[in-house]
């Protein structure tokens, strides 16, 4: 399999005044070219941390404690160290649109000037070449060229979000990671952003996208595969529609069924909710992390942690019940 990026059992913890927060605790995912991998879960489940770990953007108080991040099956980013990864990978191969993208542009520089900085540094272009490239890319992605002459604060929220996405993908990176790109936007702007992301994939400007969100409905519109995280671990992975129609993990089931979708079955099904509170990531529960809130837990669930096992056809799940174990 020529996977683009493979994370093997990566662990990254935060040190806080209360102890070590196990934000990403043994996560394995792989991303293939052409994938739009949606990563879903409640707040605090570790999705944003995972996005940083995938590109080895580790900064105190976060520390990387183990695992491998294999790029193109060859380089282990985890073994390279931050400086090397920054120099070789960031912006060029893997790029990130962080959660606070609305403030991601330098306020004292016009958009075009900032883009010029990026292009001149990475591609060694001169001012004119850089500007031409910027214009071309903006036109390709359906953004007004005048935006290049404006300061960030002069652009609307949705426009800024799209500009940020186009800026980070200027160098045609293989993997684009976006973290909650649509949460702060209204529905019509959300559609524009999603359209742009799909366009990036269709034009092969990027080869794969990791889309982090807590909103399954949004993911359904764009993701090809979905990984559901809970308490720092991945609990289920699989093709988007199949997981959506038939989730195997109880948490995945509750998450998906707490979504209002305009489909006739929903009226009969009713809304479910997930009882209890998110677990303490400093002292997670013994055994399966979801078992205290799981409506279908078995005795084994409080003793043994279920491993993430493949069930064929690209479906993986970490649940004793789903795997038929007692």
């Amino acid at each position: 399999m020529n996977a683009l990026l493979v994370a093997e059992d990566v662990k990254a913890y935060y040190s806080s005044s209360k102890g070590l927060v196990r934000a990403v605790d043994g996560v394995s995912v792989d991303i293939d070219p052409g994938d739009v991998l949606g990563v879903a879960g409640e707040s605090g489940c570790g999705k944003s941390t995972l996005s940083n770990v995938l590109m080895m953007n580790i900064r105190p108080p976060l520390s990387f404690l183990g695992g491998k991040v294999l790029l193109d099956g060859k380089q282990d980013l985890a073994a390279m160290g931050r400086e090397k990864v920054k120099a070789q990978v960031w912006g060029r191969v893997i790029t990130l649109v962080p959660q606070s993208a609305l403030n991601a542009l330098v306020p004292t520089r016009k958009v075009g000037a900032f883009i010029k900085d990026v292009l001149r540094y990475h591609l060694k272009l001169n001012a004119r070449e850089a500007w031409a490239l910027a214009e071309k890319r903006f036109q390709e992605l359906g953004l007004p060229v005048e935006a290049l002459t404006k300061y960030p604060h002069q652009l609307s929220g949705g426009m800024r979000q799209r500009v940020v996405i186009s800026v980070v993908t200027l160098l045609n990176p293989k993997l684009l990671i976006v973290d909650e790109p649509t949460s702060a936007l209204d529905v019509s702007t959300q559609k524009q952003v999603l359209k742009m992301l799909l366009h990036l994939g269709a034009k092969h400007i990027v080869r794969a996208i990791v889309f982090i969100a807590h909103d399954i409905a949004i993911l359904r519109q764009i993701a090809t595969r979905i990984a559901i995280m809970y308490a720092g671990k991945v609990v289920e992975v699989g093709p988007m529609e199949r997981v959506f129609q038939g989730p195997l993990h109880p948490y995945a089931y509750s998450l998906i069924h707490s979504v209002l979708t305009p489909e006739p079955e929903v009226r009969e099904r009713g809304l479910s909710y997930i009882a209890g509170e998110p677990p303490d990531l400093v002292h997670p529960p013994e055994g399966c992390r979801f078992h205290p809130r799981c409506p279908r837990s078995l005795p084994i669930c409080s003793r043994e942690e279920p491993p993430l096992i493949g069930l064929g056809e690209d479906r993986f799940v970490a649940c004793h019940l789903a795997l038929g174990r007692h």
Partner: protein
Amino acid sequence: MIHLLRYLIRKVVFALAALVFFVSVIFALPRLIPGNPVGVLVSKLALQGQTDPARIQAVYRDFMDEFGIGLPLWEQFTGFVTQLLRGDLGTSISMYPRKVTEILAIYLPWTVALLLPAILVSWVLGNYLGALVAWRRGTLLDKLVTPILLTVSRIPFYWFAMLMLFAFAVYLRLFPIGGTYSWGLTPSLTWDFVGNYLRHYTLPFLTWVVICLGGWAVGMRSMMIYELGSDYVLSADTLGLPQRKLLRYAFRSACLPQVTELGLNFGFMLSGSLLLELVFNYRGMGSITFQALSALDYPLIQGIFIVLAAAVILANLAVDFIYGFIDPRIRTGHLRR
């Protein structure tokens, strides 16, 4: 462009309003005391040892004219304002019949020569130093320099000046013990004079820079630390941009509030410089203020008041102008200041 223009015009209007306010205050104050203000003021002359009655009579008459006592209040005010607009700040009582403008013209340039370079140098150096320790935050440099800067900024600046003078001029004899230039010399554009002046200038200049530098550095350090942690710096980092570019971006943003601070602090720095000149016996506005106070020479004090107030208003206006050009949000009308 139009936003910038609107901003600048607003600032000019406020400046003029402030000027009018202060002129009115200085006009009103002597006329608020019961009785004849000129009488009060001239009587102080007598206290100073001037006893010739004919002389006092002459002075009294002249000042009655100048102050316009006896005329209706409105006419007094217009007379006062026209006088000001002509550049006439009145006649000194203690140095009668010399004009206030004439006297101040001797002292003001020396103050400007000391104050402006000192402010600029300390601001620039202080900002760079602050940015440097912010970048190297937590390292030995930061742990050493920052507490020193904090400590120096806690020492009363006038006392610090005294200590500097004592240490470097009196004890170590590295510099002349105060004064603007040596006795017997007259100001001229000769190397001799300039050299001599610079020798006298160095210690007060250095003292002032050291005092102010700490303040700017500490402020800049905080601003830089804040900016370096902001979203756009972190994003630029993830885009692979090098550290020095990130520092440039943060520095640019952090400088903006420092410019505003320059304006806000100018009044304080101006009054501080008066005191500093006193300690170093540097013959600028400080020493003439002291003299005027000892002699209770009201016209002279009034003139000093007007000059200082105008200086502060002007400096604030200049800073506002500069800020208008460097903050992109003002040029595009997105920020009401």
